Each structure stands twice: as structure tokens, then as C-alpha cells.
């Protein structure tokens, strides 16, 4: 009989639990139900007492607090999750597919010799676990069957609903013996980036440009359109990576979250990281040559076509 309990690891930063923590509880509960076991949650570092109370949502059986440090440190988190795994009898440990989650989840898997599947968007359990995830930048969905338990998983944010309600979890402190020599990294601080001439998160109308613009000199065309529409120019990651526009213009997971009245996406495929930053716009309009581009999944209006043909026409109409 294999182990049936599930452990989820909360994500926190600068004094707050991140939303994916509550989504982890939902995914973890789902998996624990399928396995027929209990749901454990843990939070490592920060204000663990306060975090534990928040994590005690409906369906959570136990919360283990590890009071080690104020901020996330991957060496500490890896040691804590590994020790918890050994103390509990787990069928799965489920972690966030966040930047910090991916900074310790692989080490947890190697240290415990667990199979690892990252960035899960769905979990199915029927005579064994099958994880749904995406490949080729969301163009393909794959189902991966995991033959062994226990397993280490990371889940994508925004795919499971947040856990709600108040549970009656047993909250207890978990002591971890952390060897100082195993701490090889130190967090020195944080910095907000992307300050500058404009705050795109305040913009009412946004013209946003992606890889489809092809060349830096073509940016002039969309700048002209933004002027004609009295809109603010923004961009997806590749444009900023190329240094064509400054970081403060970047929309997405690692950039800004924008909520304009109109978001006009030009030559943007709509990778999940980009969508995370603009799905809250009132009206989303996409122009893209690829009819299967994921941007059309969230667009209200779309043109399957060449932005170099559509944009000049549009400029004419607003000038």
C-alpha cells in the first residue's frame, strides 16, 4: 500500500502569501482525495503563524510551520521540505511553478530521488497519476503518466481555483536541523524594476507589440499608431529582451500587470506569461498571422492577418 498523503508548499514573498499558495491547496486536496489521504501544507520562513492561519482553508488537514528566516531561501526551503517528506508518509509533494518554486523543487526531487513533473495545468488520477502540461510554448498539450509514487510536482499559477473557507487543520511547528554549511546563497535585498518615463499599468488604451514586429526599425509604425490612437505603447518580453523598448514597457508575469479599457495586441502570440499581465483588460483585440495563436483564446476581437497591412490602414483612419 503506497503512501496517500499530500504535502503542498506555500509561496510567499515580502510578507505576503502569493495567490498560487491557495491554488496549491485546491490541487493538493484534489490529489489527496484521489489517493485517499490527508492534505498537509507547509510554509517555510516569513511570518509563519499568520501564514498558517491563512492556509487553514477548507479541506486542509495539517499545516506545518517552519520558522526559519524572513524571506525565501532555496537552501532552507529544500532542507525543510526534504525533512518534512521524511517525517510524513507522502504520496506527493506539490510545489508552485513560480520563479522561487523552480528554485527549490528540482533539488527536492533529486535529494529524495522522486520523479519530477513541472508546470502541471491539470492532474488526473485513475490507476496512477497523469499530469497534463504544455510544450512548445503552449502549442501542444501533453499528458504524462507517472508510474511511481511518491512524486514531486509543480503546478502553474491560475489553473486551479483558490481554496476558500476556514478549515480545522492542526497547526504545528516543525523543527528542521539546518546545517549552516548547506546555506550557499544569501538574499541581499529586492529591487523594483521598470520605473521610468511611463507607468503602463495606469494606461487607459494600450497598443502592445510582440515578436511579429520582426525588426527594431518597424517599431516606428506602432509608435505612430499609438500616437494616432492616443494610446500608450507596451510590448511583450522578446521586444524588451532585444533592448528595443525599456523594461517599464513590458507586460506580463515578469513585467507589469495592466488593466486598460482597450488592449490592442499586435504580433503577440499570447504565451501564458504574457496573458498573465493583460487578461484583465476590458476589451482585448489581437492582430496575428497565426490563427492558432493562443492570444485569440482571450481576445474579444481578432484579425488573422498581417499587422504591416492592417496598422497603416488604421493609422489613416485615426489621423
Amino acid at each position: 500500500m503506497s503512501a496517500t498523503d499530500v504535502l503542498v508548499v506555500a509561496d510567499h514573498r515580502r510578507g505576503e502569501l502569493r495567490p498560487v499558495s491557495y491554488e496549491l491547496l485546491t490541487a493538493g486536496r484534489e490529489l489527496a482525495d484521489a489517493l485517499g489521504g490527508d492534505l498537509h501544507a507547509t510554509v517555510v520562513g516569513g511570518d509563519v503563524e499568520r501564514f498558517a492561519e491563512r492556509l487553514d482553508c477548507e479541506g486542509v488537514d495539517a499545516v506545518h510551520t517552519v520558522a526559519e528566516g524572513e524571506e525565501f531561501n532555496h537552501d532552507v526551503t529544500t532542507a525543510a521540505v526534504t525533512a518534512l517528506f521524511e517525517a510524513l508518509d507522502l504520496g506527493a509533494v506539490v510545489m508552485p511553478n513560480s520563479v522561487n518554486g523552480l528554485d527549490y523543487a528540482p533539488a527536492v526531487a533529486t535529494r529524495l530521488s522522486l520523479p519530477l513533473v513541472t508546470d502541471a495545468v491539470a492532474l488526473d488520477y485513475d490507476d496512477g497519476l497523469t499530469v497534463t502540461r504544455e510544450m512548445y510554448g503552449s502549442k501542444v498539450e501533453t499528458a504524462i503518466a507517472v508510474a511511481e509514487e511518491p512524486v514531486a510536482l509543480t503546478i502553474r499559477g491560475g489553473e486551479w481555483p483558490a481554496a476558500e473557507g476556514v478549515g480545522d487543520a492542526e497547526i504545528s511547528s516543525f523543527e528542521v536541523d539546518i546545517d549552516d554549511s548547506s546555506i550557499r546563497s544569501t538574499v541581499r535585498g529586492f529591487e523594483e524594476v521598470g520605473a521610468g518615463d511611463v507607468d503602463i499599468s495606469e494606461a487607459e488604451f494600450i497598443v502592445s507589440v510582440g515578436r511579429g514586429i520582426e525588426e527594431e526599425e518597424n517599431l516606428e509604425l506602432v509608435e505612430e499608431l499609438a500616437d494616432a490612437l492616443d494610446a500608450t505603447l507596451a510590448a511583450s518580453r522578446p521586444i524588451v529582451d532585444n533592448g528595443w523598448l525599456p523594461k517599464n514597457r513590458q507586460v506580463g508575469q515578469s513585467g507589469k500587470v495592466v488593466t486598460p479599457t482597450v488592449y490592442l495586441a499586435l504580433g503577440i502570440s499570447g504565451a501564458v506569461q504574457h496573458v498573465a499581465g493583460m487578461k484583465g483588460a476590458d476589451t482585448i483585440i489581437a492582430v496575428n498571422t497565426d490563427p492558432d495563436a493562443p492570444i485569440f483564446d482571450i481576445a474579444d476581437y481578432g484579425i488573422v492577418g498581417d499587422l504591416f497591412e492592417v496598422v497603416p490602414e488604421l493609422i489613416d483612419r485615426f489621423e
Partner: protein
Amino acid sequence: MKILVTVKEVAEVADDFEIEGLEIPETYLEYDLNEWDDYAVEAAVRIAEDRDEEVEVVAVTIGPERSEETIRMALAKGVDRAVRVWDDALTETDVLDPTITARILAAVAEREAPDLVLSGVQAADDGFGATGVALADLLDVGWAAVVNDLELADGEAAVRRELEGGVEELTTVDLPAVLTIQTGINEPRYASLRGIRQAQRKDLAVHTLADLALDPSVVDDALTLAGVAKPESESDATLFEGGPEETAAELETVLRDAGVGAE
């Protein structure tokens, strides 16, 4: 100083493609150096160029013979030599647990004993985003994931980690270490003609799993590909059809209704 860069040749899928069983036929695939690894290669080559001491940059990849073309591009950009791992056992795997990928790379890294390992944050094809950190843990060295700025000094690396929401974490990591490199950290160079010529003469060693003292059963992981599908389109977008003139006119109406151009 020695820097090891892990690189991968990745497949890119054409806009219009079909799936046959659990595979995408070769006609729809194009192969290239993984974008993230291109930045990692550039970061390594810049360190080699900027430091007074001798720096050797070695690229390691797991891939079939076809991938040598891609690896030569890394050599053309300034990598000194390359190691390619391939094995019959690997041709039979459909999806490889990233911790197993890391185990194979670790066998190479243990032989090379680098001072620094640079990996891309993730591969553009399978997107596990886990190999670099798993590799660090297997090597029992420090690491930092999603690095978009990097400075080396006195046995440590001062890095910036790109967190979500425009926040960067400033972290120092003891060396040796594995850093996973984010896109945008630098501007990867194009290979020069001279570089491409030189690359043909650079050493590209090929190892099987046995050469690395790994049992072929190392690739018998718990993961099996059980399904491949195009995600169902959830689009309920109103699509404007016709030439640019007509579609732009429709778009104008939507924009004006939303208040654009109202002064």
C-alpha cells in the same frame, strides 16, 4: 577558470502542424539552439573575454548527431570545445524526467570540474525549467535560478534573480555554482564567418552513457508520454475577415465604441 554551459537543440513547431499518434512529424519541426541557452553561451563567452585569467568555456549537450550543427554554432560564438552525450538508450525515451537529464549532465560536470555552470532557465520545447537546479543539487554546489544579471568576485557570484511582477532579488551565491540564465541578460552575438570556420576545427567529443560510467537504465524513468494534443481553442473572439481595408474599418468601429480617439 572553467565554465561549463549546458545547451540543448530544441525543436520549434510550425504554425500549421499535425500530430500523428504521440509524435509531431519531422516535416513540421525546425531545430535550433534553445533561446535561453543562447544567452547562457553569451554570458559564458563574455566572462571569458572580460577576465584577465585564462577561461575555458565548455558546452555540454545531450542530443543525437543532428544536434552537432547547433552545437557548432555555440562553438562559433566563442565556446572552446563541446561534449555531446548520446546513447541508444536515449533514442527510446519519449519524455525524460528533468532530474535524469541532470544526472547525465552531472556525470559530465564531475569530469570537467568547472568553477561555474551556466544553464538556460528552461528549454523552449519541453519547458521543464528544472535541469539547472537539479544539476546543482546533484553536484552538491550552490545555485541561483532565473538570473538576469551576474557579476563574479572572490569566490562568489552576485546575481539578480528575476521574480514575478517586476521585482528582482539580489542574491550572492558561493562558487562553484550553477546559474540558470534568463533571456534578456545580454545580447547574444551572431557567429562570425571566422568563428564558423574556427568552430569546424574545435573539439567536439561524443560520449555514450557507458563512457560516463552511467548504466543505460538511468534513463528508465517513471515518466511516459501518454497523450499529445493541440489544446482546444477556447476562442470566442469575433474575427474580422477580409482585406486590410475592411478589417481596419471594423476595428475602427470597435475602438471608437470603446472611447479611443474621442479626444
